């Protein structure tokens, strides 16, 4: 026994070395916090060069736990100061992500200045908000929560309310490895929103090769859509949502009424004179279901909106045939709602 005792000079360093080796071996396998990657569009969508438009993918590869948590938070009114407004209040899922109002109601019944855009396919927008001030859906979440007219809250308040919800915390731990914080809430809601895709519209099926998916009139509308130059701005996978354009390039949309701050669009961010009245070109996906139209929801009917757009952006007076064809085409852009809408 004395020999072994006397050898501590040898085996203590040996033990330390062995322990270090084990730690080194085990390190990569240790559980990590699930990374909350800022999900840039580029990470889940690669554009093709085979045309101005391409069909929606059937789905995006997402973490199911995070989607589940996001769905709950999406409908959680505790995100608002007085527990009256949730994301879903304005972005009603079974109504194609809109509330059908020109402008939505926030807490205490306050009216905003902008029309709520649909959350469907928002994952494919190059930026969020009418003025594109959010680069990602995650950044977008902060907007309505902190907006005094919309939810009127802040993260401290929201998280304090969610903190006592054990079930929710368990879901958060399951999805992210730790309790809820602002990052988790943002990520979960954004991830849920990325799952809100409406594929398999007649147009997408037509593009995929099914020539009978669209009516003849709609096919004619699709041809006129390109010939008339609508395609110059409404292109890409979302038929829009990938550039800014001035509202009223060839005409004055605001003629005869006062200009609101929100009407200035991109100008509010850049201060550049040429950015006045510039807005993100909205998607035309499900456009038939997301009335009313334009940033202020001023136009309620689709054919009126088409007429206005031709007039304002192309300096064109549409004849009835073109208008009907275009509307038929736009109607073929309505896809199927995912399970989350039910």
């Amino acid at each position, binding site marked *: 026994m*004395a020999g072994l005792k006397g050898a501590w000079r*040898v085996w203590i360093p040996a033990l330390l070395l062995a322990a270090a080796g084990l730690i080194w071996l085990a390190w990569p396998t240790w559980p990590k916090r699930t990374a909350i990657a800022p999900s840039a569009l580029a990470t889940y969508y690669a554009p093709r060069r085979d045309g101005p438009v391409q069909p929606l993918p059937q789905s995006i590869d997402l973490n199911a736990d995070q989607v589940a948590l996001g769905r709950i938070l999406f409908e959680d009114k505790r995100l608002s100061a007085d527990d009256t407004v949730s994301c879903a209040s304005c972005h009603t899922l079974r109504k194609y992500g809109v509330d059908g109002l020109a402008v939505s109601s926030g807490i205490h019944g306050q009216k905003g200045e902008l029309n709520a855009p649909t959350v469907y396919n928002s994952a494919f927008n190059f930026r969020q908000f009418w003025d594109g001030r959010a680069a990602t859906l995650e950044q977008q979440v902060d907007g309505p929560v902190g907006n005094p007219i919309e939810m009127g809250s802040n993260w401290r308040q929201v998280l304090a309310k969610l903190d006592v919800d054990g079930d929710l915390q368990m879901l958060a731990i399951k999805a992210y490895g730790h309790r809820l914080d602002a990052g988790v809430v943002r990520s979960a809601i954004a991830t849920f929103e990325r799952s809100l895709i409406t594929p398999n519209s007649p147009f997408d099926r037509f593009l995929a090769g099914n020539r009978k998916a669209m009516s003849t009139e709609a096919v004619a509308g699709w041809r006129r859509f390109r010939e008339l130059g609508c395609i110059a701005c409404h292109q890409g996978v979302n038929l829009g949502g990938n550039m800014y354009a001035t509202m009223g390039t060839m005409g004055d949309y605001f003629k005869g009424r006062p200009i609101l701050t929100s009407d200035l669009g991109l100008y509010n961010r850049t201060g550049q004179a040429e950015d006045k009245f510039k807005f993100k070109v909205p998607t035309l996906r499900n456009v038939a279901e997301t009335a009313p139209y334009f940033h202020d929801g001023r136009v309620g009917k689709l054919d009126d909106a088409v007429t206005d757009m031709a007039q304002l952006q192309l300096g064109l007076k549409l004849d009835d045939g073109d208008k009907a064809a275009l509307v038929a085409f736009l109607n073929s852009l309505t896809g199927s709602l995912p399970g989350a809408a039910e």
Partner: protein
Amino acid sequence: MRNAKPSLWIWVVSVAGLTVLGWLALLSAQNDSPAKRIEALVPVLLNGEHTMKVDIVRMRYGLDNNYDILNADMAVVQANLAKLDVVSAGTELSAPLAAYRAIVVREANQVETFKYQNAVTRNSLHYFQSDAIHLLEDLPHAGGGQELQHKLTRLENAVLLLTLGADEYQADQARSLIGEVRNSSFPLTASQRETLDRLLRHAVLLVREQPKLEATTRALFDSGSRRQLSELDSLASAAVARRQALIERAQMGLGLVSVAVFGAMVFLVRRHFQNLGQIAAQRRFLQSLTDNVGVGVMVADPDDRLTFVNPQAAGLLGYRQEELLGRHMHEGIHVNVDGSVVAQAECPAEINLQAGENYAGEQYYRCKDGRIIPVLLHAAAIPDGDAGRLILVFQDMSEIYEARRRMEQLAYYDPLTGLPNRVLFQDRVAQALARARREGHSAAFMMVDLDNFKSVNDSLGHAAGDELLKLVASRIESSIRESDTAARLGGDEFAIFIPDADNPDDAASFANKLLNTIREPYRLGGLDVVCGASLGITLFPQDAGDADGLMRNADTAMFRAKEAGKQRFQFYTEDMGIGAMERLRMESLLRNALERGEFELLYQPQFMPDGTLVGAEALLRWNSPELGPVQPPRFIPVAERSGLIVEIGEWVLYEASRQCSQWRQTHPAFRMAINLSAIQFRHAGLAERVAYLLGQVDLSGEALELEITETMLMENVTHNQGVLSSLKQLGCLLAIDDFGTGYSSLSYLKRFQVDVLKIDKTFVDGLGTDANDSAVVRAIISLARNLDLAIVAEGVETEGQLNELRRYDQGDIMVQGYYFSRPIAADEFEQRYLSEASS
């Protein structure tokens, strides 16, 4: 092991070495520096920028019309740029990187602007061209129509030029042409008017936006991104090269330090194994030391558990080594002599060690089989020992004690009987006497001597004799009490000491009982043998005050008892003491008496009743210058005891035979009667001796009449038969002396061919006066006649006695006594009875 003591400097050096190693390793592993990353990403960024700019051109010329592609291009550039966030501010790379970041931000804005301008200019150009073609075809080719056609064509050319590379001059040209067309007075149809208005609106837009698009595109291509990136690249490369040099140096250092560390490790490991080897050798040495040390060695830990046991210790205690390891010393091993457990707190070794002293002394250990052995224990504390606390070295003392006990036994005990020997006895008596003196007790001292041990020894052999002694000893031992002491002093002599004999009667009755016990028959070699004993008693303090005196007294008394007829006891009396003294003196005088010629033979004549001389009885006289004339009854026992009797007897036999031979020259029938002592008679070779003497003095056997006592005759029948028949063959006559005082077997008288019976003087004394004596004499005479024996009547002193004898005589009675003559010297005898005159 002393050199292996870990000192602080080893740790300091180790930690420092490891720190240096770690630092060098860290340095040499840092090939993922920001500079390196920049160096790697610059080509990627250049490629991204290039792709984006190619796509700008493609969009500009309508080769692609999906802005998702541009967005993706820009996203690639931005994502790769984000990877350079690792570059910390303030470094030489941060400023050029920031400049490039600003360029990318500008580019992103320019791309956004491009998308819109490109979209609207493409649409406007389309509408402008188609409206212009429509109007030119529709307008009349003459007059005002032709003029308008002309203006429209010029406007169309200006716009086309604008799209090919617009500058402000051409824009101004186009603007003035637009004014001219607008202001044309040519009457148009409503439809034509509408077409023209639209054409002009698109022309205005084109003139406004086309130069902007041109500028945006140009700005994008002249963004400086390529220059900025190559500057970044060269800076990064330089930094990487510097770092690479550092890494190379660090790697070299790492190699050197590794070699040094490896060398140090080899050295340390070697030294460690050398130490191990030394330890192992030391351990083997200690192992063989403890294995062969020959004493038990054990080590106990502070909990009193054994942590080390050498083979001897295990062997002595009867365990296997591994059985003892872990056992508690004071739970079953260390015990008191009675087997009770010694508590650890009471263990003398523990107590000593607590006091800081070693321990050496006798303790008791219990063996596995339950034996309790005395051990000589040395205990010492192990200073600073981690294996134990207490080393116990012990030796089994039981064999040594046993040997000591045996030696004591040999020194103090009689090996044959197991009784104390003379030395121990004297010691015990001395002690007992001292105690008795202190306490005022009386004590009795007894001396026992077997009466006829000699004959047992001679007839049955020494083995039987020894057996007899053992049996007698055991009878004596079982007769005495615990407080008494019995001992064998030598030969067939035993002594008994009774320390509290206040009443002499008790001593007497004890002696009586003991004698009867000894007299019980013994079974020896299939025979029942009877052996009596004589016993002398002396009392303390009346008779003597010390052991020597008591022993002497008892001896004397015992001899008195023997003399008094054996098989009896005798108390010592004071006059015996004097006799004893005398005897001792006499014995020393006797030793020289023969040499000094102090012995003399007197002769007493024997006659037939008619007065005819038959012969003479030779009677020994001792004329001691110191004691005067001494009678045989006084000195013969002394001579017998001292063994001088053999020499004396020899001398008597020779002298008497010589005298007889001389006298027979004149008186051929002369007979000489010679007394044989018991010892002389028992002595082997008596017959040969007599035959030799007879030859020497030229005498025939029938001249000698050898006298023995009844007791001598009966003592050893077998032996006697041989001796007597040899003597008879020489022709010697055989006489029984003092007949009637002992006891005789008539058949023996016959068998031994006895010739003569001598009637004892005590019977002759009463002859004629005492009827009893006369009857005895008559009976003896009658007996002798029946056995055909001759008769000699001794001690005839009176005429009356002689007359009485004569009455019985039938010619076969011879007489001897003072009536005729007292014993007289040879000269006188010759003169009186053998001269011419007397015959």
